[in-house]
């Protein structure tokens, strides 16, 4: 470090910003490479005698998707009831409590189901993926794969990516049903309408477009979570402490990426 840097704080700030930007761009480039390489191995792997195997994909699906069902169910039901509560409270001012169904239906399918499953899976599986990869990098396991002639992207990244892309939208769909059902239970009890009538109303309000909007987002989140986890996990430095650091970082980055992308997606899709 040149001592002149500390003598001029402004210069050092500029330097730091430059360094962060360069590092950020570097990570984005690496992420893009990972995605394109994953697609390549998925499609061409068999021809290169490096086929992506089904067993690890299913194992990942089990871990990312099936094991997350209980917690997704709990959170989705809670969000559904919470939306109903808030909706009824705020619509009471206009005496329009009955319109709460529209708010809940669109809020859940377009926003809350994909967002809450995305955040949950980023915390649960994104961090696990980053920690696993980080550990593998520091214990030379990734090098070992390479010298055994096994492409690490094909072997480590593709199964997680495929599992995530299949399971996150599936979880979001499940979350849609649970949240709407839980909201329905509360609304029917509070406003004295039957569950059947509530269901009819939901079917009338929610269009295929709304469902597609939500599920497309969760598909995007799936790619983001996996890419962020892999990029962060493989940037590990140092020992166990480093693994802890990249794990935390991947959760923060993952959730930030999800929320920002969500906003941009909604902006592009609704205007």
């Amino acid at each position, binding site marked *: 470090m040149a001592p002149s840097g500390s003598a001029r704080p402004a210069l050092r700030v500029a330097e730091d910003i430059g360094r962060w930007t360069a590092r950020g761009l570097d990570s984005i480039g690496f992420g893009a490479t990972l995605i394109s390489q994953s697609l390549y191995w998925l499609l061409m792997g068999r021809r290169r005698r490096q086929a992506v195997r089904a067993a690890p994909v299913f194992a990942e699906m089990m871990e990312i998707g099936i094991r997350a069902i209980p917690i997704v169910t709990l959170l989705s039901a809670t969000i559904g009831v919470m939306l109903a509560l808030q909706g009824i409270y705020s619509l009471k001012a206009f005496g329009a409590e009955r319109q709460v169904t529209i708010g809940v239906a669109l809020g859940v399918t377009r926003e809350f189901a994909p967002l809450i499953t995305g955040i949950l899976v980023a915390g649960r599986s994104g961090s696990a993926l980053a920690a696993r990869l980080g550990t593998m990098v520091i*214990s030379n*396991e990734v*090098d070992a794969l*390479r*010298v*055994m*002639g096994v*492409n690490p992207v094909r072997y480590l990244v593709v199964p997680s990516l495929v599992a995530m892309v299949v399971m996150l939208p599936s979880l979001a769909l499940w979350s849609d049903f649970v949240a709407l059902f839980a909201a329905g239970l509360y609304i029917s009890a509070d406003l004295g309408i039957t569950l059947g009538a509530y269901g009819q109303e939901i079917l009338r309000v929610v269009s295929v477009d709304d469902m597609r909007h939500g599920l497309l987002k969760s598909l995007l989140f799936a790619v983001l979570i996996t890419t962020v986890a892999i990029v962060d996990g493989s940037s590990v430095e140092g020992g166990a402490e480093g693994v802890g650091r990249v794990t935390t970082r991947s959760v923060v980055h993952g959730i930030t990426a999800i929320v920002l992308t969500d906003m941009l997606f909604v902006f592009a899709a609704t205007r």
Partner: protein
Amino acid sequence: MTEAANSSHADPVIEVTDLVTHYGNTEILHGVSLTVDPGEIMVIMGGSGSGKSTLLRHLLALERPTSGSIRLLGRELTQMSEFELYALSRKMGVAFQGGALFSSMTVGENVMLPLREHTDLDEGTMEIMMRLKLEIVKLAGFENLMPSELSGGMVKRAAFARALIMDPALLFCDEPSAGLDPVVSSGLDELILRLRDALRMTIVVVTHELDSAFRIADRIAVLDRGELLALGSVDEVRNHGNPRIQNLLNRRFEEEELDPEEYLARLTGTAKEPTR
């Protein structure tokens, strides 16, 4: 030793010429050249920071050199595509220092992994081959344990079994005896000698352990601060005139010559980044 002498007329298995490498802006290897002949055990020896691990990583094509050439089994490593490297890697085995076994798989699954990825053998055949290799490294019956349930020496032996599973022509061992007690480490030395004699494997061992190096080596390459100080038989290296080699062999710590100006710069914190 005799085998190495007999086959010295054959093409070398490894041929490194003027290898220069950088880590960031720091030059690590300053033009290293060496050859490894078929059927010999070449020990690459040096202290910490000598560049021996860097040299190994380049031989394994895990890093790309700044300049120079590396020929492995007659092919230029630095110009090979990813797929050519994968094909070449089936002819070589690597036992990493920490074993680098996959912690989520049993020992048996670890050893079978290269077979699973590169062959279409049926499960039964793979298991027999796996047990065969475990027998060789004296780990028979441990195939269903997880790597975390093994001792340090056993992990290294399991790593050897995995390195041997494809019957490679060329075997790399990174610090096979580091961190092991003398009995276990001499067991691994025996194993390396047996692999050369029974299977006529060419073996490259990277180590800083003198005893082990002298016991197994056909030839020794001594690296120090990124330079090849000596390359020759055990006796040639032992009797080498270079004081740096003698310091290394006699475990003498080398005092750095004190440059008053640099010392002052270091104390006042105005020194440049240290170069290794």
